[in-house]
């Protein structure tokens, strides 16, 4: 009939003595269903009326062997009365009301006595699982994490976020930033234009130890609805080449210049849009006077296809105004050269590295940029593009050990044995070598992750290239 709730044993119903027995030694006869009746009205034998249960669960029509056969089939049946106080609650616990086990007497399978009957065509047997009996056990693997993250904090629905004061605050601060930059004007909806939607993205920013830093809400446009040629023409993202980074760093270290790192807040909001882009009003913050109006964007907003390009041209304009010249070899490099003053500026989307032979001049650039954009001065260079820069006595050391550690953890290789060479000298890699194929998506992900390591590791580039 099920599991005993107090012991590690089965609950059995002894049809002849009409007692409920708790036993661990049970043999299942899968083919026979002693309580099966096609016209049986499934009634609940209430435990308080245990005496009546013999009436309700009418004895099966199937042929029963005599009770004396139970020892023959190897079952040790202990009447519940003999089990003492331990099994005493079991008749009561059986009462847990509408358990499907009891609603359906067909499912009682562990009767010790019945022999295999001829009535084998009966297929009403249903498996009773623990979940059907509302017995759940949380999975252990989900319980144990290094930083227990309450997943309920981050939400995707605006309605849920609006009820939370912390999210409301984050959303209103984002809207204030958008308003401060005059990001849009409310206009009546145009008839022949593509209107992009927008949504809120909610993120909980955490410290390294897992505690909550702040709640961040960002309004993003659904730029994937924009069509090339109609809504936008050219896209571009200022991404500096790794060779350029190393060259500039090498020159700066050789000359003993200091390296400054800057971070631009809300970088894309500084970009001016040339094309007309219409966006729906942000969900949850509609203008009560003109609820059907749309936002005509004047500034680039996250998610738009043009946003990185607009930001790049805004930054380029600011730097050229100051006297920088955009490099032809790498468009993300800006060089300032007047008289004896020399300064370089590297751009990686919203991260900037500035260095030069005149530290007063570099400080004035930082001030100038601070007036134009809202920037965060991160001081001297230490962490850029997942690459850690450690200054030593006579050199600068670039390493990606955090990235490697994350990669090893992701591929669960952090406990593997060490080897001393990247590639085996005797195993030849061929396209079809007869061994079984593996999941190519996972393989591609790992190889792609390894390719990013080429920022600081020339010695593995052959191995990565060979494997890809």
């Amino acid at each position, binding site marked *: 009939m099920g599991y005993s709730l107090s012991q590690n044993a089965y609950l059995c119903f002894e049809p002849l003595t009409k007692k409920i027995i708790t036993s661990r030694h049970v043999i299942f006869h899968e083919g026979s269903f002693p309580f099966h009746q096609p016209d049986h009205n499934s009634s609940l034998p209430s435990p308080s009326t245990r005496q009546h249960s013999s009436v309700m669960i009418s004895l099966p029509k199937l042929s029963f062997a005599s009770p004396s056969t139970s020892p023959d089939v190897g079952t040790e049946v202990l009447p519940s009365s003999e089990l003492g106080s331990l099994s005493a609650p079991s008749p009561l616990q059986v009462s847990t009301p509408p358990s499907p086990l009891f609603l359906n007497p067909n499912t009682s399978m562990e009767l010790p006595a019945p022999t295999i009957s001829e009535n084998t065509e009966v297929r009403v047997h249903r498996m009773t699982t623990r979940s059907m009996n509302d017995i759940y056990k949380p999975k252990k693997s989900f319980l144990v994490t290094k930083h227990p993250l309450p997943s309920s904090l981050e939400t995707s629905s605006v309605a849920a976020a609006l009820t939370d004061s912390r999210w409301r605050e984050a959303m209103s601060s984002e809207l204030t930033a958008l308003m401060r930059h005059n990001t849009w004007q409310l206009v009546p909806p145009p008839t022949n234009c593509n209107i992009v939607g927008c949504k809120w993205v909610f993120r909980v920013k955490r410290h390294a130890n897992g505690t909550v830093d702040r709640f961040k809400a960002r309004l993003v446009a659904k730029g994937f609805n924009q069509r090339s040629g109609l809504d936008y023409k050219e896209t571009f993202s200022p991404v500096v080449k790794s060779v350029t980074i190393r060259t500039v760093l090498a020159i700066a*270290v*050789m000359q003993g210049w200091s390296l400054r790192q800057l971070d631009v807040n809300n970088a894309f909001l500084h970009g001016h849009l040339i094309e007309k882009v219409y966006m729906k009003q942000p969900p949850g913050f509609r203008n009560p006077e003109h609820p059907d109006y749309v936002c005509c964007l004047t500034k680039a907003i996250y998610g738009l296809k043009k946003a990185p390009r607009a930001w790049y041209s805004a930054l380029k304009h600011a730097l050229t105004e100051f006297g920088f010249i955009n490099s032809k070899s790498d468009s993300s490099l800006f060089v300032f050269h007047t008289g004896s003053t020399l300064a370089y500026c590297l751009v990686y989307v919203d991260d900037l590295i500035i260095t030069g032979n005149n530290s007063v001049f570099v400080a004035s650039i930082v001030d100038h940029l601070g007036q134009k954009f809202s920037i965060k001065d991160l001081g001297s260079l230490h962490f850029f593009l997942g690459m850690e820069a450690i200054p030593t006595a*006579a050199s600068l050391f670039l390493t990606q050990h955090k990235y490697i550690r994350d990669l090893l953890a992701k591929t669960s290789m952090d406990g593997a044995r060490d*080897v001393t*060479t990247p590639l085996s000298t005797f195993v030849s890699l061929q396209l079809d070598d007869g061994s079984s194929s593996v999941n190519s998506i996972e393989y591609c992900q790992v190889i792609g992750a390894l390719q990013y390591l080429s920022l600081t590791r*020339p*010695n593995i580039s052959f191995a990565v290239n060979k494997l890809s």
Partner: protein
Amino acid sequence: MHHPTQTHWTATKRLLRYLKNTIFHGVTISNTSSTTLTCFSNADWAGNLDDRKSTSAYLLFLGNTPISWSSKKQRAIARSSTEAEYRALAMAATESVWLLSLLQELKFSLSKPPLLLCDNLGATQLSFNPVQHSRMKHIQIDIHFLRDLVAKNILVVQHVHTTDQLADLLTKPFSRQRTDFLRDKISVLSITVGSVCYPCKYCY
């Protein structure tokens, strides 16, 4: 890449194990006073067993700092090792020319023209000998491209012995001793801060 097999996966895991062993290794940018551009160029002839294509590789140093490197399978099949080496040399020359223009924009002057080092005598001599070889007549564009640069004294091509060929590491697998020797030569080291090893500093 499209149909990776168990062997490939094992090799990838070996690479990850190597990375685990050398997790704190990285490029050292040293402040030497030498302002030279040195490029090691190398090729592994017909190294790919599937289509017998060669691998070309280069490793470019500014002073002692490795700043640019690449290891790539060649697109056309080379019929001789000289041909493969020459193609690699042409690729290294392309990168050197780009870096020259970058350095010019950075107002950084080199003390002498970039030096290309190749461990194949035939390819080295082909870069400045105006001789038309019958076996080389099908790689005309690469030959003329490099020969032109050498004639204008934009680049210098020299021979280097195989044992000093640092770009070897980017074309074929080696034994532990050779791997470690070359790795130290190209200033990929484990960091030491002061006299303390970097990992110990954070006590991982």
